[in-house]
């Protein structure tokens, strides 16, 4: 059915309004974050962890998506792969977000206090892994690994725009193959370090996959929202159809189910075994007003997007798809809040202006970064040999 379409791509500048919105949000978020750190450093540090894991989810998840495209030889996602690459470049924000936390480790992780660790048999047994030095080395190494692969893969892809050299694709396939195992390990250990070790007595062997499922969802949702919006306004290559939208929606739908599957598996085993050292983590989230948040998680993170994206037309309708992409992105933030905040506020859900700081700041920073990158590069990998087939992709 190929009708011999040509690649029609005209590079356009994003409207300056976008940049001003990004700037406004960044300033507003920065003010809230600074004020929060001034008024209640402990509370802000917990929010900082949510923000950190959120931006890691988006940036590293997007890089994972790029790597998967290279490895599987997928063509349908090639026309908007540059969008994924730019989103993966948000990984430069990770060190910025992690630095204030490194000064506040004592207020969030109680395994950082030697007197607590020495008095506790379990914590002293875990001390060879959970100690500040090794912890900082780990996150530094993870950031280095992510930035290295992000730099190498996008550099090759960008070079291809001008050289149209097909061997660059082969190089990226090899890089992606090396990156995937690193990705699996770094994302699992990021989840364990920054989310599970908030409650160092608790353990769940599936936790790394749980965070991974959220990571992929957040990245896919961001990519979907940005790609659909850009395409609707004509910033991407001509010829993208509802078939492309459908594929993105189907992936989102699949990972919504994957997340629910993993989340339920984690709960079911703990519930069945009924061991006090495992159940207390869920019981904390079932007490006071946290029960509302926990039940809300099932609705917000599974039921609503599940039925929202169930039918074929809903995945092809750009307005619906954009809505649910944003919804899922917010749901991931909600999920991280569910993982982190019960450790700050045992008695009940704590919601105030503090909680707004990091989402606003991160969205602002992401917009600014996207605008500045989009000025320098094409928004479509025009030199990629798969681009033509990607545009002609039909279900």
């Amino acid at each position, binding site marked *: *059915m190929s009708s011999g379409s040509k690649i029609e791509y005209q590079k356009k500048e994003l409207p300056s309004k976008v940049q001003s919105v990004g700037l406004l949000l960044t300033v507003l978020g920065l003010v809230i974050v600074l004020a929060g750190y001034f008024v209640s450093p402990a509370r802000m540090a917990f929010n900082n962890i949510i923000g950190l894991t959120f931006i890691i989810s988006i940036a590293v998840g997007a890089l994972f998506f790029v790597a998967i495209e290279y490895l599987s030889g997928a063509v349908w996602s090639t026309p908007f792969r540059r969008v994924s690459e730019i989103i993966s470049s948000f990984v430069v924000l990770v060190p910025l977000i992690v630095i204030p936390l490194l000064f506040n480790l004592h207020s969030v992780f109680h395994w950082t206090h030697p007197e607590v660790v020495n008095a506790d048999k379990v914590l002293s047994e875990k001390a060879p892994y959970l100690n500040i030095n090794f912890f900082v080395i780990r996150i530094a190494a993870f950031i280095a690994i992510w930035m290295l692969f992000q730099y190498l893969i996008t550099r090759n892809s960008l070079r291809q725009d001008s050289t149209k050299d097909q061997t660059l694709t082969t190089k990226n396939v090899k890089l992606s193959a090396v990156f995937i195992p690193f990705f699996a390990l770094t994302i699992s250990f990021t989840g364990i370090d920054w989310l599970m070790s908030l409650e160092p007595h608790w353990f769940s062997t599936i936790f790394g996959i749980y965070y991974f499922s959220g990571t992929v969802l957040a990245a896919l949702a961001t990519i979907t929202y940005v790609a659909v919006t850009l395409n609707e306004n004509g910033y991407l290559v001509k010829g993208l159809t509802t078939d492309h939208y459908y594929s993105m929606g189907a992936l989102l739908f699949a990972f919504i189910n994957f997340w629910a599957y993993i989340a339920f598996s984690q709960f*079911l085993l703990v*519930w*069945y075994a009924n061991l006090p050292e495992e159940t207390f983590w869920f019981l904390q989230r079932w007490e006071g007003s946290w029960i509302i948040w926990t039940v809300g998680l099932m609705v917000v993170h599974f039921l609503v997007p599940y039925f929202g994206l169930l039918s074929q037309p809903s995945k092809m309708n750009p307005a619906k798809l954009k809505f649910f992409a944003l919804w899922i992105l917010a749901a991931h933030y909600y999920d991280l809040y569910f993982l982190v905040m019960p450790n700050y506020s045992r008695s009940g859900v704590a919601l105030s202006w503090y909680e707004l700081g990091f989402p606003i700041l991160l969205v602002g920073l992401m917009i600014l970064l996207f605008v500045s990158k989009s000025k320098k590069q094409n928004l479509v990998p025009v030199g990629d040999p798969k681009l033509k087939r990607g545009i002609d992709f039909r*279900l």
Partner: protein
Amino acid sequence: MKEKILYGYTGIFNTPDEIAHAAEKAVAKGFTKFDVHTPYPLHGMNKAMSLKPSKLGYVALVLGLSALMGAVFSLWWVSAVDYPIVVGGKPFFAFPAFVPVMFEVTVLTASVGTVLAMLFVFFKLPNNSHPLHGTEYMRNVSADKYGLLVQAEDTKFDEATIKSFFQELHASEIDAVYWDNEEINHEHKILTPKFLGFLLVAGLITSGATYFALNKLTYMLPFTWMMEQQKQNPQQKSLIFSDGFGMRKPVEGTIARGFLPYEYKGQPDLAAEKLFNPLPVSKNVLALGQKKYDTYCSPCHDFQGTGLSRLRGQFPNPPSLHSEKVRTWNDGRIYAVIMDGQNVMPSYANLLDSDERWAVIHYIRALQRSLNAKESDIK
């Protein structure tokens, strides 16, 4: 031979683009009963033929949701209503444990049901033969050509316009396809009296043979040889002993070890008067008593004898063993309770032997003393 009945007209095209174009033209002409045959699935054909989205998704949705509700209902009925069993201390309606079953039932019903609906409702199978079978047209579109068929049922169908329609599109091999006479004259003869009678006879024979094999055959020679052995079966009249009992009683005036006869059944006051504890208090006796107490008594009476049952109130809590009444009972009175039971408590005569019962009584005394220590105990 009867007159042939027209099924439709077919035309052959050489490229995918031509067939897509032809399909668009057929839609533009207003044909509704037409179909396209290609050697492999063509992307975008749905759009060219202006096909509406399949209704199969709704079948899957309805089947899935009803299976989900059916699973919840049957699990609830079986586990919480009809036959409730405590498993691992979980509630009878243990929703998390039901979720995997609900998931499996939903997926299985929806997927199998959707495939069956597709085959037998949407595709209208079984269909023994089809006018297109064995035609040159079918041979072509199964190999390397692309074909368009317009059925005679179509309201816009007219032989002359169809022919010119195909010619305009430069189709090759424009052919008329006729119904197979055999297919038209074929009657569905499955529900004839003869066949129904055959089904009835076959069913009778099968069920009768099954009944015979299971209920009669196994009680006939030689299949009963294993059953009829030269041995004494329980409850069977003995042919050897004159009193007819298969089992022998102990010789008169003797008792078996550990089976002291209990003569005060139903007479606790008499037992209290006549019985005394034959065991001396020693470390070993108390250890035995504690072991048996913790095993048999503590589930209801609690480890300390307070009567705060740990069976989560599934039985009424027994009274405390530290009451004035129990403390002033002598050992024989408590022995009578162990032997006979009291109120809800059943007899423990079969679970503890004589020495163990007395050891438990010693241990109960130790418990009572521990909670009601006298001045003289502190030394």
